[in-house]
Structure formats: structure tokens, C-alpha cells
């Protein structure tokens, strides 16, 4: 959860009450809280024109939305074509070894969550990963270990 997380009323005031606001509302909740809880979805629906089944349908369709909390730092390993042919799978192995988590999992100390992403648009620096909003490129196993240690 970010320090100045907006409450649902504030988010609705910003994004609107109509159906088209559904995705921006979810994005705002995801951004501020790191995930979207059932209670938050209920609250949104009680205060807007969006139906509950619709909102849940949207939340589960888009991969950006998380219905369970992630760790403090979100590691996203690129599984794009360029990264794939330059050994992205090895990076997943390194993270699994170092942090003891697989894809979709969070470390016991809640420090890291590991996910994959389709492409970061840094294909010329493949293999690449994104931690929070920062992209790291031209990775090797050692470089990745070094980066993880900085957190």
C-alpha cells in the first residue's frame, strides 16, 4: 500500500461512476494498494453504476489486476521472444534458487513476488527484467544476483 493511498470515494471522484470507469478505478486501487480486495470491489459497485459481476469479470480478465497482495517488491521477468532466445528461463532458475520462489509466488518475508511479463520493450538489452518500475537489461546470473542483493 502506498503511503498516500486514496480511499474508494476519492478514487471514484477521480475516475467517474459510469461503466467505462471500471478499468481506471481498478487501476487506481491496484496502484495504491498493490491488489484489489473483494470488499473494495463491493464498495465500488455500491457507489457506482458498475455491476458486481461485470467488475469481477474485468478484474479477472486483465493480467495487471491482482486479487491477492504481492510482496513489497514485484519482480517481473520478461518472457518476450528476444528474452526467451537469450535465456530468460535461466534467470527464472536463478531467482528460484536465490529466493526460493517460483512464478506467481511471494517470499515468506513478503519481500519479493515473482511474475512474468510478455515483453518490456527493452528487447535489445535482452534478457531483461523489471523490478517495480525499473527495467534492468543485459542480465547474467551474476548481475541478477547482485541486483537482488541491493534490495
Amino acid at each position, binding site marked *: 500500500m502506498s503511503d498516500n493511498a486514496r480511499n474508494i470515494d476519492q478514487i471514484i471522484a477521480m475516475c467517474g461512476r*459510469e*461503466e*467505462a*470507469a*471500471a*478499468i*481506471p478505478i*481498478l*487501476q487506481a486501487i491496484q496502484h495504491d494498494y498493490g491488489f484489489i480486495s473483494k470488499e473494495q470491489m463491493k464498495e465500488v459497485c455500491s457507489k457506482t453504476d*458498475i455491476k458486481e459481476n*461485470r467488475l469481477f*469479470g*474485468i478484474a479477472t*480478465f*486483465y*493480467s*495487471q*489486476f491482482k486479487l491477492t497482495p504481492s510482496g513489497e517488491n514485484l519482480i517481473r521477468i520478461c*518472457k*518476450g*521472444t*528476444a528474452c*526467451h*532466445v*537469450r535465456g530468460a528461463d535461466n534467470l527464472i532458475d536463478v531467482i528460484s534458487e536465490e529466493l526460493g520462489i517460483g512464478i506467481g509466488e511471494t517470499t515468506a518475508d513478503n519481500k519479493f513476488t515473482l511474475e512474468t*511479463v*510478455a*515483453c*518490456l*520493450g*527493452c*528487447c*535489445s*538489452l*535482452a534478457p*531483461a527484467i*523489471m523490478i517495480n*518500475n*525499473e*527495467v*534492468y*537489461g*543485459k542480465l547474467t546470473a551474476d548481475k541478477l544476483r547482485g541486483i537482488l542483493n541491493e534490495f
Partner: protein
Amino acid sequence: MNSKLPQSVLLKVGMGTCGIAAGARAIYDKLEEQVKNFQNIEIDYTSCNGFCHLEPLIETIIKGKTLLLANLSAEQIPFLLENLTNKKLLSSKVLVIEKDKKLKGQNRIVLENCGIINPDKLNDYLEKDGYVALKKVLNNISPEEVIENIKKSGLRGRGGAGFSTGIKWDLARKAQSEQKYVICNADEGDPGAFMDRAVMEGDPHRVIEGLIICGYAIGASKGYIYCRAEYPLAIMRLRKAIIDAKESNLLGENVLNSGFGFEIIIKEGAGAFVCGEETALIASVEGQRGMPRIKPPFPATKGLWEKPTNINNVETLANIPWIIRKGADSFSALGTEKSPGTKVFSLAGKIKNAGLIEIEMGVSLRDIIYGIGGGSSTNKEVKAVQLGGPSGGCIPAEMFDTLVDYESLMSTGAIVGSGGMVAVDEDTCMVDLAKYFLQFIQSESCGKCTFCRIGTKRMLEILTRMTEGKSNMEELNKLRALAQNIGVASLCALGKTAPNPVMTTLRYFESEYLEHINEKKCSTGVCKALVIYTIDEQKCIGCTKCAKNCPVDTISGSLKKPHYIHQEKCIKCGNCEKVCPVGAVSKL
């Protein structure tokens, strides 16, 4: 104090997402800290100039020559500042490259400002004739004439399908409605492609200018830019550009006091590849699940909120200001007759000069891969190039004389696509690559069509068995049949083109499939299940390291005696090969 500099020198750090990922921020910080000690040196930042393999880099003009100071580290900065004008001294410690030489073979229209201007400064764009096209259009060209112009230029959509932009605009123009919309498709979902990201980050006003002109031409007062959320920097720079454009009355209720009103809203994607498809994108903007629908009706007649809507790709729109400024004829003079103009490609994979390039249509793949791309980045030869991502195909090295234009590439089974070009070398397994794309399609299919949802799953299962040595020839035939049926029976192009990577690898690399099926072997060593690790008894010194590091205890042998791997339990993790101090472990 550096008094040797007669004129002031401007150092521009390449700060696109790629530059930053390569370490450009540290370079910029160091420059900022050190530059105070020097007179006549100024610093600024720009975005990606396409030479990603040289990042982090600085672009500068010294004695009339544009130079790239490449692959920098922060430690080099003090020396660099001291010796800027002494090229000989400089190149003794810093990689110095003349930009013109690097640009050989390219012709930059869309990228003309990328890596040169500061994308956050409207003035920089204005100095490069920015918004001149908009002024020209609003002052003395009617919407119909604009459309005629674009038709005459021959511009075709750069988002993949290659449809005539002028004809599309015309349809939207002729649709009767009070309210119309224009949308810039910045979803750039093809993995391995980053042209649109670079254009938005490097020259955001150009995309905005293109979109405003498009709105004027079809009669829309509202435009959307649908950008994928994985591009935070592009979104940030677009936002800033929109604010600046509004302040200068280039956007708003009365653009440049012409009476034409136009606003732009940015919509962030939420991580769904299928939302790049235009009808799914529209559904997503409306706040629904991003599911494609049947066409017709086309968006030009019934699009966003059922209103006539024109959707164009980022690069398509980025071409517009240039065409208006320089004339349709200048554009159609470039490229080939049927595919005029230029195309931006992103070069990635096993290629030396990875980055962004812009070439005239009609150049051969060979000239791109070996001429501009510099060939393989490894000690193995380039084996094939993958174009067009999951909808595209692989073209083998024997066919690199193929010309890059819509028709020629289509005849190979691949497509121009959005412009992703991924080179693979002899260490890449083509069966694994086909499997990779099907995995991608599988996870991104919206699930609406049975053939796309379940057919691709069956294909993936067969390919997975092939990579595990558990398949047979019958399944190969099944794979072919599935590929054909999925192509016919899917609603949108995601499903229709999903079999392409399999079809093209089967066509050009059938022997690799047969090897996996009949010999249960993967000569590239990529398919782990087919790899057999063995220990050379002659070389083994019996240090026991491999046995100690084996996670499943399947290596036996006593101290100072040759060790042995029991294959039944081996999980092919490769640990033994990694830890062996004498290289006694090898893959078969």
C-alpha cells in the same frame, strides 16, 4: 577549467527506457555533478536513437561531426569532459563512433527526431518543424484534401495488417455522425518489438500531431491513446506533451484559433495482448473485458460507443506530419510501388547491433541482418529471423534475399507485422520456438472461439510432447491439421494467425521436428528433457563436486574415482556440468 573549447558543446544522454536500463541515469548524474567545473559544456537528455547496443551513450556534435560516445560508464565521465575536443585521446579510453557511419543503409522519417531532441521540450520539436503540418492543414487544407493526400502517399497501416490509411480515413470521414473518435493504438503487444515505445518516448509530439490531423480529417473532436501499462515512461512523456500542447493552444477547444476543437485522453492498458486488436481495444476503452467482436461493422462505421471511429497504429500516425510537410509524392517516391515509405524495425535476439532501425521498404533481409545488424552476436551463425511475433513466421537464412515489403514477406509465410525482428542462431531450437509462441497465444487467447481456445491448447500439448521425446509422426499430421483448422475457424486475427509460427518452422525446419520425433534428440540442447548428461571417465578426477551438487542424488562414485550419472533419476538441471572443474561433464 576547460578553456580549450571554442564553442559550447552540448552533450545529450540517451534516456529512453533502454538507455536507463543500461545505466544512463548514473551517467547523467555524474555529468551533472562534474559539468560545473567546465565552461562551455552543456548537458541535456534525449531518448533512444536506436543504437541500443551502444547504450549507455552520449550524442554530441564536435567540430561539425555528430559523434556517439558509447558503452559509457560513470567513471569515464571526468576523463571524457577533460578531453572532449581531443578525439584521439578520447577514443583511447572511450568508444567514439561517427553517427553517419552507423546510419548507413537507413532512411529516417519516423525516427528523424528520436535521440536528437529532448522529448520533454515542446520547443525542441517546434525547432524541427514540429506542428508545421498541423498549421498548414488548419490554415488551408480541407479535410477531404488531407485524405486525398494520404491516399496519394500510399501509406499503409504499420500496425500489422497493412491496410491503406487514406481509404480508412475516408470511410470514417463519410460515416454520418455528430460524434466521432480517433484512437492511437499504442498497445504494442508483440513480444520482441519496441518501435512504438521508442517513438512515444523519443518524439511524443509527433504522435500527437498525427492524431490531431487525423481527427481533423475525419471530423472527430476527441482522441484516445491506448498505451500498454508496461511502458510507464512513454505514458509519462505523452502526458507531459499533452499538457504542453494544450498550453500552447495546439490542443483544446479552439486549436490555433482555427475553430477546430480537439482533446486527447490517455488510456492505460491492463496487460492483455488481445487488446491490441481494434475491436477488443474499443471494448477495453469502454470499460469491458477486451474481447474482439465480428467485423463488419467496422470501427469506421460503428466503433467506440457505437460511433464512427478511426484506429491507427503509433508509427502510422507518426508518418502523417512528414507526409503533409513534404508532400505525398516525396513519400511515395520512397520504398516500393506497393509498399511505399519506410518501416521501423526493432532488431533483437542473437544480433550484434540490436536496436531500432528505419529502412525504406524493399531492402533485403540480408542487408538488414548483416549490413545494418552486423550479423550474429554469438560465435554461431544466424539461422533464421522471426518477424511479426506470434502472428508471424520464421524465415531461414537461405532466404535472406527476400525483400522486406508486404507482398514479398507474405509469400514466405511470414509478415511485415508490426516490425519486431528477432534473429536466432544455431543454438536456438525451432521446435522450442514454435512451442514458445503457442504458449504465448494460449495464455493470451480471450477464450471466445473454441478453435483458438482449445485448438491452440492441443497444438501446445503436441509440441510439448515433441520437446520431451514423447511424440510420433501421427501427431505431426494432427499438428498440421489443427493449424489449418484454427486458421479458418477463429474470429479475430489472434487465432487466425496463431498457427503461423508452427507452419513456418515446419516448412523451413522440418528436419528439426523429425529429429525430435524420431531420434528423440534436440541437437541444440535447448529441450532439456532430451538432453543426456554424461561424465567422461578419462577426464573425471573424482572430486565428488558433481555428486554433492546433484539435487536428486543420481550421481555415484567415490573420491578420486570416475563418477557416473544414473539416467533414470536425472532431472537435467545441468548442475553437474556447471560445477565440474575439469569439464568432464558433457551434454549429448
